[in-house]
């Protein structure tokens, strides 16, 4: 029997699920190997019986936390889809303020107490609420990587998620280092798998795929010093997608 696959979204732009739709003709191949049983953005049908759950988005409210726990109970394999789910993403930038401050900024004079829709807590990544089996990083995810992960899961294999820096892929592509052009890049400490998409497009890596498991902070520091930049510059930049990541040193 084909594995039953479900997609769920929380606080996000739904751009990662869009990458699944953006597989274009390959979607026709995808539905050959899996049964999509729930995908609210694209289909009306819904089933609570699924093997693999893909979760997009970060967790912002108690009602979302309960919903996520319910999904975890039903899913054999749970995959976090994209930066918001994996590491909090840009959503977590709001964690620089307390929830009270944020609510006051946003709702001003409107009374939103006792309204569960507005009951936000400091933003969480998915693995701060439930166990995550696999991560597909990026903002948005890379659709080819998504295809590879699904294929591995269908074959009962462990998907391979890179644990080497973006620089490796960037060098392979023969790009001129963007630091040379006076731009800032987080490539030396960011997890690869995007095929160095941003540096290849003439922009610095923004760290959307999160820190490596063991980032070589010494080499990043070396690079920063070479171009007259400080660790604080890098830490500020890193806040864009991984506000909570702790970079030692």
């Amino acid at each position: 029997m084909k594995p039953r696959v479900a997609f769920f979204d929380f606080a996000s732009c739904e751009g990662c699920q869009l990458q699944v739709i953006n597989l274009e003709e390959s979607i026709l191949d995808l539905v050959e190997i899996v049964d999509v049983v729930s995908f609210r953005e694209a289909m009306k049908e819904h089933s609570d019986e699924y093997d693999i759950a893909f979760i997009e988005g970060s967790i912002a409210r108690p009602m979302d936390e309960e919903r996520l726990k319910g999904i975890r109970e039903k899913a054999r394999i749970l995959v976090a889809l994209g930066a918001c789910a994996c590491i909090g993403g840009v959503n977590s930038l709001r964690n620089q303020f307390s929830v009270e401050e944020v609510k006051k900024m946003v709702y001003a004079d409107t009374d939103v107490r006792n309204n569960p829709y507005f009951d936000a807590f400091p933003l969480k990544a998915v693995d701060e609420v439930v166990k995550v089996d696999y991560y597909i990083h990026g903002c948005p995810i890379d659709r080819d990587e998504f295809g590879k992960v699904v294929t591995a899961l269908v074959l009962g294999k462990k998907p391979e998620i890179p644990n080497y820096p973006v620089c490796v892929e960037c060098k392979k592509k023969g790009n001129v280092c963007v630091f040379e052009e006076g731009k800032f890049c987080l490539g030396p400490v960011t997890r690869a798998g995007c095929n160095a998409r941003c540096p290849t497009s003439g922009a610095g890596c923004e760290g959307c795929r999160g820190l490596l498991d063991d980032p070589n902070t010494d080499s990043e520091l070396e690079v920063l010093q070479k171009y007259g930049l400080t660790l604080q510059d890098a830490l500020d930049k890193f806040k864009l997608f991984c506000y909570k990541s702790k970079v030692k040193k």
Partner: protein
Amino acid sequence: MSEDVRIKVEHLTRVEGHGNIVLNSKNGRVEEVQWQVSEAPRFFEAMVVERDYSELSIITSRICGICSIAHAFASLKATESAMGVKISDQTLMLRKLALHGENIQSHILHVGYLVAPDLFGVGSVFPLINTSKEAVVKIVKVHRLANEMCDLICGRTTHPITTVVGGFTKIPTKKELIDLKARIENTIKTAGDVVDIVLANVDKLPKFTRETEYIGLTCDDEYALYDGVVGSTDTGKHEVNEYESITNEWVVPHSTAKYAKHNRESYMVGALARFNLNSAKLSPLAKEVADKFGLKTLCYNPFMNSVAQLVEIVHNMEDSIRIIDELLNRGLEKEKIKIGVKAGHGIGGVEAPRGILFHDYTYDKNGKCVKANCVIPTNQNHANIQKDMELLAPMLLTNEKTEKEIELNLEMLVRAYDPCISCSTHYLNVKFV
């Protein structure tokens, strides 16, 4: 129908984001009908505060996965206006080309994947892969072209990379543009086939009308998408800088998105609004498509928004060819970007696929954001959806429809607006300082 009806569609499907439809009736009379937005609020205003001007478009493009390019451009225009940055004609043309790509991508996604299942009487595009594979393949072909356009100009289909304050970090080569032109020419016919597929099923769209106000960008020399002033079918032209007196947002308890009103109790933005304001400036083939459907200004049927989107897809393709020809004629040039960072306030308005979009930023002298406000198309449509529902629901109750049919019609109404609910709960609109 005389029985009591209780409809609660929780998390409406085939729309972007989370919304609910509620209808309760007793003895054939509506007791409650409501369009609710339950999406988790995302607090973008807290995200951008104290961030560098160069990061604003990166952060705010994440308001929406489907119209990230429009968000990036509204953001860049606001920042460029705040800092007095002028962009080159080449940058302007490339941005217009990218916006065409995104408009096609978003519209074909909506008409082909989200609306078409209702026309074919199925729950999603997946069963159509078996029953109407040829139609699905055509829809996919148009979708692919649109994504390739965005990929080429922006470095990525979703969340653009190359588009920065003042210009582009990378521009396409001459050969890439020639290839793209050939592919667009090759796909216009396919888009025409998709038009015919929808035309053959257009009787499934309810014939419902309610007079309302339509708002969108308008300008004298083209079908306005990137630039223009704010046009209203009720009150004429207004400056973009007056956007707050047009959108007048407020908070309602059953929705985490704000509502908006201008001259009446609600207004509509999006493809139908643009068509109603600017149809005379459509490309020749796009006008032919409108004629095929008998779409004429002013059209007050919200369900025809999907048809207006098809008209725009053809316009986007034809106008893209014109832009590419002009770029090739001029020759492409790698341009240096120089920004003089300074304190300032700027407003950017563009047409996103779902309607007029405003970003409004204030920066300090170091180029850090101190105040931000965004007004999203779907926010501007929520009140109009509600008003349509209030008129449509009693009609459906008296028309001998089953509860299932009533539910489907209400769902189709919301879907027709192509709501982007994550966008509308961005909450970037509170003043700082």
